[in-house]
């Protein structure tokens, strides 16, 4: 069995399809993986041609989960689309909420209060941990370390319970509004989050004990699907995949939003750009996220009682008791719910989601429905890299590669 290290311009020799008598180069095996295959992480379809077990042609096909989210936004209106952003990358709904809210705030010129920004950072980092836990759990299953799945999901379950305690939902929270968040964080919830985040680094140590030094895990990941810096940039990879390849680009540092410049954290960067590097980068990001969560909790204690939602009556619903007592507030509420309009123009805001740069481009013609809403899904760029990294490799490596590129089809197909 021959394997190839990917190099630009090197195309693995294709087996001859015509000469059936040659035992070394017989027919190619055409295999259709997905869209309901266990290793494709959602409804991704991959058409593979195998020479023995070597991949000689591979073509990912996306679109099986296409629900027309962008078009939905253009017909639903600005506010109602928040619910739909949850369904993009459904392992980190709050992060999508925040990305969309930031784009609308940029377009509307809304100033977000400090406490709301702190809460958003807290939610972002908790979502990042949750998403990376999913990565670790599913990649563990793909490579046969089934117990990893339960180790990660025990942590993720607690995370869900915390989000449930705060937002009232385990998934699909829809808790972010233009100008802030829906409600303040209760102090008991803060304490619960603190208790969880205090034990979390030890849990990450346990994950690492299971995998990092494990020779089998190392062999299955090391130098598998190595991506150079140039390739990563050329293919527009982002997030941990880009940083794993050695490019230090983290939007939290490069273009800080929501006050990320106030927090102390390091950006994890890989060297080789293989599956193992991407794994290490994600594990380190979980630790760094835990650091940020701790700092955010400290800041929350300091800003106790401050406002968590901007008092901008163009876009922010007035408090319910005022609506009942004041005519002007009732009119505000009615206008915002029925036809809230954003000023003419367009805006783009990208945030560093767990998968990479999650960007929302919104264009308004001054009416209550968007002229255009485009979602820059980091997962789509990561799916693109599948043929590049898996060409000429063994079929078994494909599961490590798909797992380590880490995409969620809800976001890729939109």
């Amino acid at each position, binding site marked *: 069995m021959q394997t190839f290290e990917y190099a630009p311009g090197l195309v693995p020799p294709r087996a001859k399809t015509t000469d059936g008598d040659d035992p070394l180069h017989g027919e190619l095996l055409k295999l259709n993986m997905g869209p309901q295959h266990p290793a494709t992480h959602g409804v991704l379809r991959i058409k593979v041609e195998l020479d023995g077990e070597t991949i000689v042609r591979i073509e990912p096909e996306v679109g099986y989960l296409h629900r027309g989210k962008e078009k939905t936004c253009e017909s639903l209106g600005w506010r109602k689309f928040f619910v739909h952003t949850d369904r993009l990358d459904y392992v980190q709904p709050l992060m999508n909420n925040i990305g969309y809210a930031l784009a609308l705030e940029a377009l509307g010129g809304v100033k977000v209060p400090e406490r709301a920004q702190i809460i958003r950072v807290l939610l972002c980092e908790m979502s990042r941990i949750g998403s990376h836990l999913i990565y670790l759990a599913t990649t563990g299953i793909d490579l046969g370390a089934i*117990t990893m799945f339960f180790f990660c999901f025990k942590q993720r379950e607690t995370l869900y319970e915390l989000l449930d305690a705060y937002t009232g939902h385990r998934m699909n929270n829809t808790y972010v509004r233009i100008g802030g968040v829906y409600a303040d964080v209760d102090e008991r919830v803060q304490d619960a989050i603190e208790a969880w985040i205090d034990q979390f680094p030890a849990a990450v140590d346990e994950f690492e004990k299971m995998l990092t030094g494990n020779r089998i895990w190392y062999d299955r990941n090391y130098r598998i699907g190595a991506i150079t810096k140039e390739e990563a940039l050329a293919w527009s990879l982002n997030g941990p995949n880009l940083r794993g390849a050695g490019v230090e680009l983290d939007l939290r540092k490069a273009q800080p939003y929501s006050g990320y410049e106030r927090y102390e954290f390091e950006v994890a960067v890989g060297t080789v750009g293989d599956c193992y590097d991407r794994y290490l980068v994600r594990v380190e990001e979980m630790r760094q996220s835990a650091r940020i969560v701790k700092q955010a909790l400290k800041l929350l204690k300091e800003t106790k009682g401050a406002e968590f939602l901007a008092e901008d009556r163009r876009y922010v619903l007035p408090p319910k008791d005022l609506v009942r007592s004041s005519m002007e507030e009732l009119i505000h509420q009615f206008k915002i719910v029925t036809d809230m309009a954003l000023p003419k123009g367009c805006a783009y805001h990208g945030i560093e989601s767990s998968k990479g740069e999650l960007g929302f481009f919104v264009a308004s013609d001054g009416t209550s429905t968007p002229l255009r809403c485009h979602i820059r899904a980091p997962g789509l760029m990561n799916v693109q890299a599948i043929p590049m990294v898996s060409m000429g490799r*063994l079929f078994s490596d494909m599961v490590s590669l798909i797992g380590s590129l880490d995409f969620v089809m809800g976001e890729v197909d939109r």
Partner: protein
Amino acid sequence: MNDIAAKLGMTGDQLEGLLAILVRNTVILIGVINVAAVMTLVERKVSAWMQYRHGPNRVGPWGLLQPLADGVKFIFKEVVIPYGANKPLYLLAPAMAAVPAMMTIAVIPFANDVVLFGKNWGPLAIADIDVGILYLLAIGSMSVYGVILAGWASNSKYSLLGGLRASAQMISYELSMILAILAVVALAGSINLKEIAALQASTGNPLDWFFFKQPLACFLLLVASFAETNRHPFDFAECEPELVAGFNTEYSAMKWAIFFIGEYSAMAVMSALSVVLFWGGWSVPFMPDAPWYLGFAAFLAKVSVYLFLFVWVRWTLPRFRFDQLMRIGWKVMLPLALLNLLATGAMLALFGPPGAP
């Protein structure tokens, strides 16, 4: 007893011997099948214990009747034969996978000579044959045909890849496994499993167990038995993520269950073989004259440790890639096994067989 024997045209001793064989063989065969059933429960309980779960706990006390419920379910499920499958081979494959494991159990000596009702009934084994190890290896290797046939006959590409991997896997570990066993054979000077066990049990000193003379061979056999039984970390033939379920993707109902009875029986056989070869078989430490039932209990205890090891490893380690097993088999295990055999031979030539004055 003598009257019945006379009517059947044989002596009383002959009839007693015949009945003894019947009882013994039935007990052992049913025992092995039950071990397979219990192992399915143990596997689920141990994995649950490792993964913050409860495992089966609804059927019977502590879920003890779960294997029975599973058996009933499998029997009543519909048998689906996929379109375009090679029907005779498709139906034959599960049997081909399970029967060799059942056959190999025949030569395993579970205990020393059984003394019951004031009579010596011989060792607790279905067959005490002189070429025990040879028989075990020859028959045991047949089980891979079941996997290959299942892969071929299912008319599914995933199954086919699983079957191909099983064949690639087999050639890479079997040689080193046999060489590892050969070192013990050289040490014992016999390929009769009962004699090998008796040699280690004679003094009751645990240091006489061949593990302490052949630790490397014991480890090689352990690794090879993971591959032999298609267990994690070498379960490429199944390999859930990329091959869906590998060779048994298209199997359902009892045919699927028979594959698993085969797998667990093979686990029991490989554990028993390791115990006989390296851990003194029925030897009870410091009790050279232990009665047969104590020896049998000791044997079962040792086998249980091995079976637990199988389960423990499965739920702890990630899976190898199949070319990595071939690399390990040919480049690491085979040279090690050869060296071990060479060293054993040299020691025997220099110092004579163990136990010799």
